[in-house]
């Protein structure tokens, strides 16, 4: 018995050991041989195969019977799709949502055109996928129990033992004809490809991009032809028209989005090979970083500027800071020397004092001015790195002007009321708030996490103690306690009755939490940078900031890409906790909003299944993409 089990589980004795984990077992030409080798190698192995097979069939059958049961109310989800995505966003303003999605799609398209080299996939592999998918679908069709018969009132018919009466097996198979077609066409095309192609044909490749774009295109086209049914909830009425095609308000935007994706990808590919590639890449990067803010403040919120105030106060102030700051920075970068550093330290002091003074109400300096001052101090601290040729000095001034104008613009929009006609407490909800919180959390926690990691690996003991203490405390407590803590604490520091205080609290909590974990990932990367790199940088006379920025961080971050992607996925999954602290993310919509609608009282499982599926699709594709990325990076490594 012992040796049998060890055979079945002995990975080191078998031939799979040298392979990369996750690499599929190469299919030998003869199916019988393959079966013998991979399923029935010896008695113990056969036994395990039988047990595993029975268990799989039972579980699959249970899941299918559950999902396709006549008792499932899938129309609850279909009707509430819009609520799941955006909750209470008014129908009249919905164009804004589409514009936001279009902006994101544009960025995705441009980025993948500019950077992505997804490589190719072998036809052989596609064929295998087709065969497995088709086989799986057919297996599912066969396993699902025949449907329960309903009487004219929709009540389940029962026999004398009060067991439900089911249709006959043959009629059940007949009624699943659509699924048969789908399964056979997948399996058949895979099989046909497999046997039609000779060995050279199978090793041919197709681009991985097309394996994503073609199915997406088929889905979009099917919106126009397939009878998915028309379900909606509008003006307090539930619309349920099974057998209809989806409404034009769904199919038209999606078609446009798909075309936009194609167009931007082509554009990106085109720009990539031109001289503009460098500028385009920078622009797209910047757009990604500012997109959540711009989308929120400009498109979804649409500030209603008080132009008199803007012209009299906001504009002059922005220009003043931009102008004065530029002069100061230009002067600071004229030559190296301690004057610049001393001046910068003075600026930091003054900027810090402004905040203290404002906190005690000593003199009323506008918040915008205080923030600008602080930014100027930071820029002054960086100034010694930009001393030298004209181009570098200009670069610093340009950075300064852009940051300043952006900050002033954002501050102005924050302080302006919105023209979008809804209360801000239910401003956004559903999946969109989930994505919004996840994006902001990742963006804010990244710099904080890098700083903490640097602190933890620092030579300076106090920095080390501070960072380690922070990281370990945060990692020692559950996220929910931190979220609740900040949902009490953050509103204390915000102006009374400010909009979206809950959301600000949640993002603060998420950011501080996820920064600690991110720091640990980056720390792994930092520790992998060899000591010689530090020494070489020191020997060349680089300052410690330059050493960190040019030598250490680029290498460390490259190593930590896989765990960082893991952290992104984790953050995205953690946004589900928004439901607990009272924000209507799509989990909460599925878990409590839908079940409390009169038409769908207590219908919970369907919504939760859909939510799981959406989470799964996002997380799974991201992790697969990161594995691909990891392999590709690994190839280039020495």
């Amino acid at each position, binding site marked *: 018995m012992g040796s049998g089990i060890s055979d079945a589980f002995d990975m*080191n004795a078998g031939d799979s050991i040298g392979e990369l984990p996750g690499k599929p077992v190469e299919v030998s030409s003869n199916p019988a041989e393959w079966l013998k080798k991979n399923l029935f190698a010896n008695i113990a192995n056969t036994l395990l195969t039988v047990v595993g097979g029975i268990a799989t069939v039972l579980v699959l059958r249970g899941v299918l019977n559950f999902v396709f049961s006549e008792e499932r109310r899938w129309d609850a989800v279909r009707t509430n799709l819009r609520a799941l995505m955006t909750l209470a966003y008014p129908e009249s303003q919905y164009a804004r949502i589409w514009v936001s999605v279009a902006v994101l799609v544009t960025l995705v398209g441009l980025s993948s055109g500019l950077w992505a080299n997804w490589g190719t996939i072998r036809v052989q592999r596609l064929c295998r996928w087709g065969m497995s998918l088709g086989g799986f679908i057919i297996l599912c069709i066969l396993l699902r129990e025949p449907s329960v018969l309903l009487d004219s009132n929709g009540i389940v018919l029962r026999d004398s033992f009060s067991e439900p009466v089911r249709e006959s097996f043959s009629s059940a198979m007949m009624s699943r004809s659509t699924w048969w077609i789908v399964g056979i066409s997948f399996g058949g095309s895979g099989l046909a490809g497999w046997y039609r192609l000779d060995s050279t044909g199978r090793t041919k490749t197709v681009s991985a991009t097309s394996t994503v774009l073609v199915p997406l295109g088929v889905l979009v086209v099917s919106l126009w032809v397939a009878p998915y049914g028309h379900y909606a909830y509008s003006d307090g009425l539930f619309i349920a028209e099974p057998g209809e095609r989806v409404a034009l308000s769904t199919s038209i935007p999606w078609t446009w989005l798909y075309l936009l994706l194609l167009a931007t990808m082509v554009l990106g590919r085109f720009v990539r090979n031109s001289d503009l590639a460098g500028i385009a890449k920078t622009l797209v990067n910047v757009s990604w970083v500012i997109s959540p803010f711009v989308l929120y403040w400009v498109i979804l919120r649409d500030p209603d500027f008080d132009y008199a105030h803007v012209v009299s106060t906001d504009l002059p102030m922005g220009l003043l800071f931009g102008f004065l700051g530029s002069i100061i920075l230009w002067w600071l970068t004229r030559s190296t020397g301690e004057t610049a550093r001393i001046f910068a330290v003075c600026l930091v002091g003054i900027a810090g004092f402004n905040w203290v003074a404002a906190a005690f109400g000593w003199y009323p300096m506008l918040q915008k001015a205080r923030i600008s001052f602080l930014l100027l101090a930071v820029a002054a601290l960086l100034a010694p790195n930009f001393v030298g040729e004209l181009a570098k000095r200009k670069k610093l001034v340009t950075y300064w002007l852009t940051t300043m104008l952006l900050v002033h613009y954002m501050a102005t929009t924050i302080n302006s009321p919105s023209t979008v006609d809804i209360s801000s407490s239910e401003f956004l909800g559903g999946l969109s708030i989930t994505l919004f919180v996840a994006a902001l959390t990742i963006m804010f926690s990244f710099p904080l996490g890098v700083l903490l990691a640097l602190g933890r690996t620092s030579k300076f003991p106090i920095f080390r103690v501070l960072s380690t203490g922070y990281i370990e405390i945060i990692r020692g*407590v559950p996220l929910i306690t931190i979220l609740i803590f900040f949902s009490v604490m953050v509103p*204390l520091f915000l102006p009374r009755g400010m909009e979206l205080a809950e959301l600000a609290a949640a993002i603060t909590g998420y950011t501080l939490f996820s920064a600690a974990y991110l720091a640990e990932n980056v720390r792994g990367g930092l520790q992998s940078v060899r000591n010689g790199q530090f020494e070489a940088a020191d020997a060349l006379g680089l300052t410690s900031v330059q050493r960190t920025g040019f030598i250490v961080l680029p290498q460390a971050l490259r190593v930590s890409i896989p765990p960082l992607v893991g952290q992104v996925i984790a953050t995205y999954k953690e946004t589900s906790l928004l439901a607990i602290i009272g924000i209507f993310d799509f989990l909460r919509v599925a878990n409590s909003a839908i079940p409390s609608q009169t038409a769908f009282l207590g219908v919970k499982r369907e919504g939760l299944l859909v939510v799981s599926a959406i*989470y799964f699709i996002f997380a799974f594709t991201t992790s697969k993409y990161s594995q691909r990325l990891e392999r590709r990076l690994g190839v280039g490594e020495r």
Partner: protein
Amino acid sequence: MADTARSSLTQSRPPFYRDVTVVKWVVQIFVLAVVIGSMFFLASEAGDNLRASNVPTDYDFLSVNPGIDLSEGIDRDPDTGGRALWVGMVNTLRMALAGIALATFVGVIIGLCRLSNNWLLNKIGSAYVELIRNVPLLVQILLYGSVFANLPRVTQSVGPISGWLHLSNKGLSVPRFHIADGFYQWAIVVMVGLVLANYVRKKRVGIQDLTGDDTRPIRSALLVLLGVSAVGWFVHPVFGFLNTPLRQISEGISLIPQAAVQVALAVVALALAVRWVIKFLDARRSPAGLAKLTDDDYFRIIFALAGALIMVFVVLILWPGLSSWLLNAVSDFFTVLSEKFGNGRSGRPLDVALPDVIQVGKFPNYGPSGLNLSIGFAAVFFGVVFYTAAFIAEIVRGGVLAVPRGQSEAANALGLRRWTVLRRVILPQAARNMLPPLGNQYLNLAKNTSLAIAVGYSDIVQVGQTVYNQTGKTLPVVSIWMLFYLSCSLTISVVVNFFNVRTKIVER
């Protein structure tokens, strides 16, 4: 030449703002000051705002009757807030410990499946891991909860095995093992058995080493332990006499004056610090004389001494209650222990109670005698177990794959059988790779039980939320949560570290 060179070398100190050491420490102290200052500032601001908006922050609720009922736990109707939180803590720990055990079991099996040569098992393992890992735990818990909530209603004869195993929309009810009358007396016997078994094992190993015969040391030791425990089942009342000495110890401890404990604690703290410093200096001393200490060395010494002084300050002045609390706790412990002995305890050490269904009002429900696991418990429990198991499976797989192939080849070349190779060569090395991440997962599991708040299982977070909803004292409750979870984390990392040190390969 040399003289002129030397005379020109006046060890000039640079101005302080260019001195590396000074700058280094000034920067650090400045940042420390900024951090402490801003925390102080934030805290005082928060305090002001809390007072302004009349949010209470005291801990009175701990000794006031909260007037809440808990869904389950050792005390369904706690009479103080502190007791309610205590019940929540026990519930959390119960869930975490059981979860860790089961998650390890499931995880190892799935991990072995993923390593298997069997195609089907391999795919099952992969599908499990990918499915579970990519769906948020909270969603899974809610899903399980809603599925369980749709189970059949409770009736007087609810199955599957009425009277033994009840499953319904009120949860699961199974026979409950509990410690009874003579347990502590019996525990003494078992401890004696352990000592005996260990002695037998050592003896047998000695014989095996000498003669080479297989003496089966583990098996004999287990047999001895079983035998002694079985005999102890009947003769345990002879240990009833322990009642008196334990009580006398308790009384003796309560006679110690509080000041003595304070002084003792202070002396211990100081002595530890001084001993550490002396050892540290010794390590820096060589035949050539005491090495010049670096800045870090000074920092460490100052840190150790300052820590000791702070301890002394805390023990003597800031918190004298600590010492009396320690005294009382130890004394109480012995009192409670003494009560477990004697007094005519002669019954079975362990007992079992079968579940039952009772009908008090209109609806039947599970009675108190069985071990009742509510829907909430089941949802959270299966949620954390399945979720953590997926991660443990990956750790197991990674750990085994990380053992170099040469190891099994070398072992095979020695002519060892496969099972022996697996047990003696692969698994010990894999275990060492797996331990640290495994500890992390246990920690995550313990923390993830806090999601019980979503399905209403009375863990510490859910109870805490109920308490602060009643009293409005959110921050004190949050502080108790954090302390509790931090001490759990600390315990788990201490345990994992202990094993980690033991399994570490000695490298030069």
